[in-house]
């Protein structure tokens, strides 16, 4: 069973826990930052909002589904909500696996599905 941890909160995203099990050979990570431009206009910050229980449920289901095709040891997803300034991280995902191929595949597929099915929204921007 793949261990899944999901955090959706307004705290600043911290570096991953790197504790490695001796059977873990690979850690693939993705961090998404707020860029200084949204829809062609300069911004200073974004606001993210979540339907929190559903977002967690959908992410957990997606990850379990993806793990069947791409066996990994653990996944940790942290999505920040509230006001996030340019240059700060909005999302961080860490996937630990025995080998790198399933870790990369699960990470990329999860990000694609997240952007289709997980009820989290950019709701506002602050102009720069």
């Amino acid at each position: 069973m793949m261990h899944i941890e999901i955090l959706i909160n307004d705290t600043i995203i911290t570096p991953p826990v790197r504790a490695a099990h001796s059977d873990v050979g690979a850690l693939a990570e993705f961090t998404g930052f707020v860029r200084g431009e949204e829809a062609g206009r300069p911004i200073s910050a974004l606001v993210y909002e979540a339907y929190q229980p559903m977002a967690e449920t959908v992410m957990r289901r997606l990850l379990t589904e993806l793990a069947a095709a791409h066996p990994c040891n653990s996944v940790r997803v942290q999505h920040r909500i509230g006001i996030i300034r340019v240059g700060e991280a909005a999302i961080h995902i860490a996937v630990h696996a025995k080998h790198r191929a399933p870790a990369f595949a699960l990470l990329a597929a999860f990000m694609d599905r997240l952007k289709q099915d997980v009820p989290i929204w950019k709701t506002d921007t602050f102009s720069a």
Partner: protein
Amino acid sequence: MTVLYFAHARRIAAVTQEEIPVAAPLSSSNFWDLIIRRHAGMAPLRASSRLARGNDFLPPDAVIAPSDEIAIIPPVSGG
């Protein structure tokens, strides 16, 4: 029936949730007719939004019970 509004839908409805008394089960189509009667500005969201119940997206043929909690999920943009 409890309706939850998020993101753009919340801005249009100007509430995060509301109780809407309904006498009988509804189809998704009945649901949207009802919502748009209350909040005319929601009409453009009908085509792009999905409905959810109990943390699951509703299938198109689902029947909504008077006691259900239904969330309106505009197109997502997380990550």
